[in-house]
């Protein structure tokens, strides 16, 4: 037990749970049918991959708000190895395992 429980924090947590429900259900909370323009349907083909790339790529190439200054970073090699594995064998678990097999030695031994 490191911290103490307070009601304000619990209230924020309940609020965040509300945010999860609101965002995950956003367009199907109301019964009223919405007509969607065609361009929005097309946009949906790109939005999911754009969102994932927007989350994932900074996690790989950035350190405390800046691009990694050189290639001494285990995350880059791990991600490249993982992606290469994916396009070779098509498995998400394998992608993770191959990536970690590259990441852990570089990270723990060389502190990259």
């Amino acid at each position, binding site marked *: 037990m490191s911290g103490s429980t307070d009601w304000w924090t619990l209230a924020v947590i309940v609020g965040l749970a509300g945010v999860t429900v609101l965002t995950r259900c956003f367009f199907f909370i109301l019964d009223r049918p919405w007509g969607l323009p065609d361009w929005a349907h097309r946009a949906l083909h790109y*939005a999911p991959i754009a969102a994932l790339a927007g*989350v994932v790529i900074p996690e790989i190439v950035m350190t405390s708000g800046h691009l990694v200054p050189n290639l001494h970073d285990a995350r880059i090699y791990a991600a490249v190895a993982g992606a290469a594995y994916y396009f070779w064998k098509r498995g*998400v678990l394998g992608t993770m395992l191959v990536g970690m097999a590259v990441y852990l030695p570089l990270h723990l031994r060389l502190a990259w």
Partner: protein
Amino acid sequence: MFFLSSIRREPMFKEGVRNMAPVAMGIGAWGLMTGVAMVKSGMSVIEAVAMTLLVYAGSSQLAAIPLLVAGAPFWVVLATGFCVNLRFVVFSLHLRPYLMYMPRWRRMTHGYLTADMSYAMFTSHYPEPASTDEQRRAQEAYLTGGYCVTWVSWMGMSLIGIALGNLIPQSWGLGFAGVLSLVGILCSMATSRLRVLAALIAGATAVAAYALPLKLNIVVAIGVAVLLCFWIEKGFVPNPAAEDDV
């Protein structure tokens, strides 16, 4: 909705479980690190458990932790969570035609439990919403099977992470397994040249706009990538629907 045995009995429930199972380890590792991070940043065990069980959204949890610890105002924490979660708004628009035939409580329960992986797997397995009752039952069962695995592995490993607390050093970098799982999912979505381009534009934009507050760089990245790809598609690709299914 895995508490309803009528859904669990559908054969597509098992199919959803099977398809999601390979991702479970990555989600579990990510949950483990989130659990450890919550306790180590000074939240109490009760707060960390409440956050795990209720919020059920790793990225907004991780973004909220430093704000909670710093005592940021209520609305700032919630606004940050909303921005980090904006991708779900996009997902919900996509999921609407699949779920609208259900009563509100039922579709909102499904919505609440459907996170990134479940959404991605469900919509790539079923590119079109069901049109018959039989198809509807199958789709609901497949979706439920998928998020059942996600929920159990996330919750189980997060709670273990909270319990282990300070025993696992952050320096091992096990949280990176979650990022690597997302790399795999990202590759699996790269089914056309325009989608690869969307990923590259979004990644570059998210890096360039990293200094924006509230994780808004991700929102900007989505906007820029979608608009640019849409513009390229209109101007240079005669048949975008065919390009899609390469």
